């Protein structure tokens, strides 16, 4: 077929065939590299980036404990309903810091760019990352750019590392979970995985399911301020979804997590897509929804606090911790007794019919 415009499946915007693209020369350290950094990258982090061309960034600490994490981000397609690779690369690392109990302060950002990526796409991704960094009030203090030959990467990979200041009280972690504790989620589950899958496979769901990609800083802060020392642990339920997190916790604390299906919030869009594809929202990825274990007496207070945070209006208790029973995680569905909820294995594959 003879198409006048190249339709990039990763992007809802048609890119002209003669659009300026990243070449290997952009990565060779000479003038083109310098221009890529000073004209394309740095302006997009205007208020947040450390603008000096030095080998390392120097930051000041105020004598507190620090949390450090790193995460590499790749998503196909790069743009999906509710987010894109740029904002995801910031939120992902910021959220890892936040759920650990840290206030995110600094990020580094490494770009691995595939030769041929249209510069317009790179600009949109970086605009979005810059916006997310400003929203989260983190400074991007150092960065790196590599260009790899066509075929050696899928468009663009972004690694971000983050440093955050630990805030008291720090949730002690899953091993501190006690029988009787409550489990809550900050919003409807499975939105990110379904949004990306629908965009990747061009499912024409109407309305399109939106990703929950976003920062959890405010949600975590509201929990810290309301029920502080009664928090056991917090996690962002990314790959493997809620089920994966609960199985990990169960391994750490040795108890059973008992869920009630009717309490678990799922949007109509996600539920419809899951019914169609034969998937269970409990196994589908989230990118801005947290799961929390909290002492029973403080669970309602935690829910109320969360519900005041924009985006967490549907926060709710979905289950409780019991002494170890038939399985590490159980779920009560339509009728009868609780049943084991299995651990996710591999990426969920849609069924035939």
């Amino acid at each position: 077929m003879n198409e006048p415009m190249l339709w990039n499946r990763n992007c809802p915007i048609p890119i002209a065939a003669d659009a300026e693209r990243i070449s290997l020369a952009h990565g060779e350290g000479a003038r083109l590299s310098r221009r890529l950094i000073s004209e394309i990258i740095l302006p997009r982090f205007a208020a947040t980036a450390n603008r000096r061309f030095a080998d390392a960034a120097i930051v000041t600490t105020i004598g507190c404990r620090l949390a450090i994490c790193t995460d590499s981000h790749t998503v196909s397609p790069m743009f999906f309903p509710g987010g894109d690779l740029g904002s995801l690369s910031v939120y992902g690392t910021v959220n890892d810091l936040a759920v650990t109990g840290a206030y995110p302060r600094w990020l580094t950002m490494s770009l691995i760019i595939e030769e041929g990526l249209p510069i317009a796409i790179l600009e949109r991704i970086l605009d979005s990352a810059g916006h997310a960094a400003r929203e989260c009030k983190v400074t991007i203090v150092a960065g790196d750019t590599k260009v790899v030959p066509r075929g050696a990467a899928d468009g663009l990979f972004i690694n971000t590392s983050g440093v955050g200041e630990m805030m008291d009280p720090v949730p002690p972690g899953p091993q501190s979970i006690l029988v009787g504790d409550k489990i809550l989620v900050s919003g409807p589950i499975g939105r990110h995985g379904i949004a990306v899958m629908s965009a990747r496979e061009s499912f024409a769901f109407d309305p399109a399911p939106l990703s929950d990609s976003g920062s959890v800083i405010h949600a975590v802060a509201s929990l810290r301020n309301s029920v502080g020392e009664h928090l056991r642990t917090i996690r962002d339920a990314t790959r493997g979804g809620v089920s994966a997190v609960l199985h990990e916790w169960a391994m750490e604390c040795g108890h059973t997590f008992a869920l009630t299906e009717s309490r678990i919030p799922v949007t109509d869009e996600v539920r419809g897509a899951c019914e169609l594809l034969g998937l269970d929202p409990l196994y589908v990825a989230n990118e801005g929804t947290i799961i929390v274990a909290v002492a029973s007496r403080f669970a309602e207070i935690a829910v109320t606090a969360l519900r005041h945070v924009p985006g967490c209006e549907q926060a709710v208790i979905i289950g409780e911790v019991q002494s170890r029973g038939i399985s590490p995680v159980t779920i009560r569905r339509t009728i009868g007794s609780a049943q084991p909820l299995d651990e996710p294995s591999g990426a969920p594959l849609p069924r035939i019919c």
Partner: protein
Amino acid sequence: MKFIDEFRDPALATELVRRIRATAQQPRVLMEVCGGQTHSLLRHGIDVELQGIVELIHGPGCPVCVTDISAIDLAQQLASLPGVVLASFGDMLRVPASQGSLLTARTAGANVMMVYSPVDAVRHAQRHPEQQVVFFAVGFETTAPATALAVLQAHQLGLENFSLLVSHVRVQPAMEALMQAPDNRVQGFLAAGHVCSITGYDAYDDFAQRYRVPVVVTGFEPVDLLQGILECVTQLESGTAEVRNTYGRSVTRFGNPAAQRVVETVYEIDDRAWRGFGVISAGGYKLRDQYETFDAPRRFGLTRSTETNDSATAQRCRAGEVLSGRLKPCDCPEFGMACTPDSPLGAPMVSSEGACAAWFRYHRGSKL
């Protein structure tokens, strides 16, 4: 989603369980034909609720599971040919065959692509004239209309780089094979709702009479399943053996004539090797002569085995006994030991419709 909620209503479900208990005077053995029904029964704990009253034997209605290993081997051979890309539904990719699964073949360099619909494969062929796209057409009467439509579409477009590895199966001949087996225990069938939405249930009248067995067209939600079970049990208690439709919101007596026409245009009924059953007479479809240019094995000069593959892998996995209701997944010595969803020995542990996967997922260690 209100249309689903009413069929998952706990009060209604509990009431149906009560009525089934009140009706059944003795334990009954029913088979739910479709793997989707198996998963729903186990997911909602219906089998546990009815323990001691109704034993549910899981039927062969899992298209991935009954696809013979020889067909998957052939798919791998095709995917390894230069210039060929094999397009397949997702849950077929992880099924182990003689030389590993299609996914392991892909890791080793074979060209395998996951699609959601055969029409996507046609579109891919249209966009990539330099590739030969082979679609792995598996599934029951439910998926056959879509693959037939893909053939008609490719024919109309004059696509010379699209073909099919046809492994379609038909459900009723398998039910016949089950009833003819000397050790058959099935006293009533919950017929597969989705298949019947295409085929209708007219053809079951003769079957029900011949074998004196109730056939109840049943849906997939807890209330649907319990209604199907209640109808079956009621018939068994009153000594009748009739065809009943409890899935009226999707199924009519004569099914979907448009879909049937498309299938008849493209396919003709043929014998088919079924995993665990051997060759079932009239158990599948093949392309009609008129469309044989779309037959992938023919196009690439590969011969298709007419027999089932009983290789070592196939023997270790006792899928055949599971699929014909002779072996409960938890009674297989490999279940949960060497065979798990992470490293499945056979298809029933892979598929989202496989009985072993359902047991592992919802009952795990517990033995019923």
